[in-house]
């Protein structure tokens, strides 16, 4: 019985762990729709959709060269459409159904095409239709984040095939592991809003893409400078605003948990941006606009798993540390290994996600999310976090690699050299910015 509620109540279930004694009671109480909670979840869904289109589309679109801006933006937009349909067809079922004997690993296909989702089906205190759509927006942004790693060179057709398969084979199962009743949730991994599921997962997949596809033509010789950072600032700003839906929405209620999640998200993000800014100012003599917004995104990523578990002071520390680590991830680390993660999908989302997941284990406060972290004496939580990180990295990396190899063999991954030099906008979409 608990299992069912669990599987249904999604990430709330995680919080549920801490209050397991109470679980049967709220379960009953939750069977009534709460208009306030529903209002907030409707809003959160809109906010998270806005993160991808136009948020991420612009954040990435401003960073490429002018000849690739439409193609880059098109990736986020087309992914939004494709993931929506795939989530409805199978993704939601795999992630959030009860998978029976295999429930530790996936949720099965019993809810394919949302056959079990009636209009009046509730999920906790909100309609299941809202929870499904809210989760859909997460399934949209995750593959969209990966596109930063292979920007300016991947074929649109291969990108669509890859993203579609990836969301079903990689994203939906990992979501099930953590939030759908799978083994990581059971193990007590803390991931409030998707540090592991979304960011580490996307970041690692991005790294594998960057390695498999290889470098862009001309990297190192030609200028790859962002063509219009105004677009990127708009994008980063909408990501920030939309992230309130992502993190505070992950409370699946308009309550104290949502409120605190919003507050700590804001604080950690600002701290990370300032941290990156100051480091760059000292090391490179000028605080760049790209640095400011990259730091902010790094902070958003890092606070994502932590947002239901840390207090404002913890968020401040977490943000300051995350800004520094992401700076290192997007500048030094990349150069150290020489892969071409074009827009730092791994450098920011992977590195920031790992840092955030670990720091959640450090700064978690039992007064906030019911679980103590290292600073409150619970060193074991860091290990549990590590388990989640390692499992995600391993699965995501291996399956992404295999997927890319297969798709590469069947249809190729990159546009031709000439097309890449001339630009993807015209060659892939037949359009240009005039």
């Amino acid at each position, binding site marked *: 019985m608990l299992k069912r509620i669990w599987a249904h109540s999604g990430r709330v279930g995680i919080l549920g762990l801490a209050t397991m004694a109470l679980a049967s009671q709220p379960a009953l109480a939750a069977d009534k729709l709460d208009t306030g909670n529903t209002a907030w979840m409707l809003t959160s869904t809109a906010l998270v959709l806005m993160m991808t289109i136009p948020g991420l589309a612009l954040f990435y679109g401003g960073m490429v060269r002018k000849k690739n801006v439409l193609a880059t933006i098109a990736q986020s937009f087309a992914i939004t459409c494709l993931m929506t349909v795939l989530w409805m067809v199978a993704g939601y079922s795999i992630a959030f159904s009860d998978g029976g004997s295999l429930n530790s690993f996936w949720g099965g296909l019993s809810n394919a095409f949302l056959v079990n989702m009636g209009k009046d089906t509730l999920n906790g205190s909100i309609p299941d239709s809202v929870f499904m759509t809210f989760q859909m927006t997460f399934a949209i942004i995750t593959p969209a984040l990966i596109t930063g790693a292979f920007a300016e060179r991947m074929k649109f057709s291969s990108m669509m095939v890859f993203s579609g398969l990836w969301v079903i084979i990689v994203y939906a199962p990992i979501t099930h592991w953590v939030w759908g009743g799978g083994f990581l949730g059971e193990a007590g991994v803390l991931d409030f809003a998707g540090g592991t599921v979304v960011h580490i997962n996307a970041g690692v997949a991005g790294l594998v893409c960057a390695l498999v596809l290889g470098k862009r033509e001309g990297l190192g010789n030609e*200028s*790859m*400078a*962002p063509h219009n950072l105004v677009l990127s600032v708009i994008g980063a700003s909408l990501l920030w605003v939309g992230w309130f839906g992502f993190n505070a929405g992950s409370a699946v209620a308009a309550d104290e948990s949502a409120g605190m999640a919003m507050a700590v998200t804001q604080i950690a993000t600002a701290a990370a941006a300032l941290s990156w800014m100051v480091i760059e100012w000292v090391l*490179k003599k*000028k605080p*760049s606009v*790209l*640095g400011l917004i*990259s730091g902010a995104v790094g902070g958003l990523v890092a606070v994502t798993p932590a947002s239901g578990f840390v207090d404002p002071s913890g968020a401040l520390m977490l943000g300051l540390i995350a800004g520094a680590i992401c700076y290192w991830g*997007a*500048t*030094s680390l*990349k*150069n150290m290994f020489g892969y071409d993660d074009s827009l*730092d999908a791994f*450098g920011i989302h992977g590195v920031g996600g790992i840092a955030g997941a670990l720091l959640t284990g450090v700064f978690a406060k039992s007064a906030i999310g019911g679980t103590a972290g290292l600073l409150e004496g619970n060193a074991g939580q860091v290990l549990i976090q590590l388990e989640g990180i390692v499992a995600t990295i391993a699965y995501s990396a291996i399956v992404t690699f295999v997927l890319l190899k297969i798709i590469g063999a069947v249809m190729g991954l990159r546009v031709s050299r000439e097309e890449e030099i001339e630009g993807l906008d015209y060659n892939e979409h037949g359009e240009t910015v005039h």
Partner: protein
Amino acid sequence: MKYIIGIIKPHRLDPVPTPTAENGIEGITVSEVKGHGRQKGHSEIYRGAEYQVSFLPKVKIEMAIDETREDEVVSAITGSAGTGKIGDGKVFVLPLESAVRIRTCETGKQAI
């Protein structure tokens, strides 16, 4: 007739004399260009990657003039566009064989 090409600093366009009856300039065409000379450009750093921006913004001005006004016009340009700092630019004088005013089909000196 002569065809004068000037490459100057972008923010020195406003002081350049616009055509008037007196200054011998009948018309002027300008465009945005980028240049590299003794002044070498700068570098921009994006997430740790340093890109050399070898070309700096300049403005190109073009004027077709009567050869009798050559000195006058060249010194009008050098006078107003000069700041004495590196990167001030150049004035080039090319021979111009003929000119036509499209509206009237006037040619030669009438056309410039």
